[in-house]
């Protein structure tokens, strides 16, 4: 075990680990606890860490598993975690939706943040791993301990749900 080596590899991930932790837990105090515990566990487990392994995926996996056993993680699972992978949400693509969709512009950052926050934790998590951390599906499968097929379908449903959430407020406004 070489702590200097660990420091070199793991410390650059600090900001993004924190960002995800905050997204997952929803507040600073718990995000800090989560990140701290992640580093503690990682440092302890670094001995068994195989060189050549993807340290980013490894660290995020630890963070994610730690989150699941944390208070906010358990709460998220009880409230908004969709357990069933095969839940048949309406998956027919939004081919019928008008490209009013181009409302999805940077100018409305708050909208996307709100929409993301309104998603079930499981969807929020996979979108963050894919879009924010830019992990490959294979890495996401590793982090979430899921088969790659499940990653694909969950991600697809998550993006679908996100788009739905983005449109919902706009529709409500139009209805007024």
């Amino acid at each position: 075990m070489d702590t200097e080596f660990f420091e070199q590899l793991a410390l650059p991930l600090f900001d993004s680990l924190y960002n995800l932790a905050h997204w997952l837990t929803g507040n600073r105090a718990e995000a800090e606890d989560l990140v701290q515990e992640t580093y503690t566990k990682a440092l302890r487990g670094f001995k068994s860490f195989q060189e050549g392994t993807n340290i980013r995926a490894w660290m995020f996996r630890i963070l994610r598993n730690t989150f699941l056993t944390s208070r906010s993680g358990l709460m998220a699972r009880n409230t908004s975690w969709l357990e069933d992978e095969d839940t048949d949400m309406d998956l027919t693509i939004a081919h019928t939706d008008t490209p009013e969709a181009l409302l999805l512009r940077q100018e409305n950052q708050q909208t996307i943040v709100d929409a993301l926050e309104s998603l079930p934790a499981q969807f929020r998590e996979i979108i963050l791993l894919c879009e924010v951390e830019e992990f490959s599906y294979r890495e996401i499968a590793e982090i979430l301990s899921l088969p790659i097929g499940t990653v694909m379908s969950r991600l697809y449903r998550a993006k679908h749900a996100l788009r739905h959430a983005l449109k919902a407020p706009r529709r409500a406004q139009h209805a007024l």
Partner: protein
Amino acid sequence: MHCDQDGAMLVQYLDGELSADQASALQQHIGECPRCAAEVSELIGLKHSLRAARSRFTPTIEFRRKIERQIAKPRHNWWRTRFVSALATAAVFLVIAAVLWMQRSRHTDSLGEVADLHVEALASANPVDVVSTDRHTVKPWFQSKIPFSFNIPELTGTEFSLLGGRLVYLHQQPGAQLIFNLRKHEISVLIFQKTTEISNALPAGSRTEKRNSFTVATEDSQQLRFVIIGDADANEMQKLAQLIKIANE
């Protein structure tokens, strides 16, 4: 025109998860299908907006420092770290040896306890309290902690090197445990004052005996009693015992 394009494919396409062949076929379809083109442009917009989530939450400087300290803490003790990793291979063996040892000798004599101290130091994540190869650093560290003083031999020209030391207790008597390295072997030298308790507990005089996987050598000076324990061969153990004895005469 009817389009039966799988929507999930479009997502995978934008996530860069399709093979080159799949991607170029899809690209061609998108060029011909307004529905899929609209879908893709919406997905691109979504990807784009999601950048807002990228550094939405930033850690405080205080928290960053805290984590940095947490990680960096053991680094200053790099000797300790190296020491631990050198021991890692021997650890399993040592634990087995220790169990055998304890089964046999726990209740029979204090050498068993000495062996426990040795194994405990080697198996511990923090085997030494004072980490230094320099006898001039190690010795003063003990001065405020034990009611006697001792000398550490000059090791230049020998194959032994000093790894560090720690404070130990045997029969409630404080003592010094020095850990030396000899090639792949770690050897503990335990030093106690000749109190009644220690004299009763540890056999007097110079002798060397084999106990399970360990060799134990004992030595005396006028004031002190030394126990040298390790898995090096008996000759080497005696050599170290002699060096310790001479340094303290």
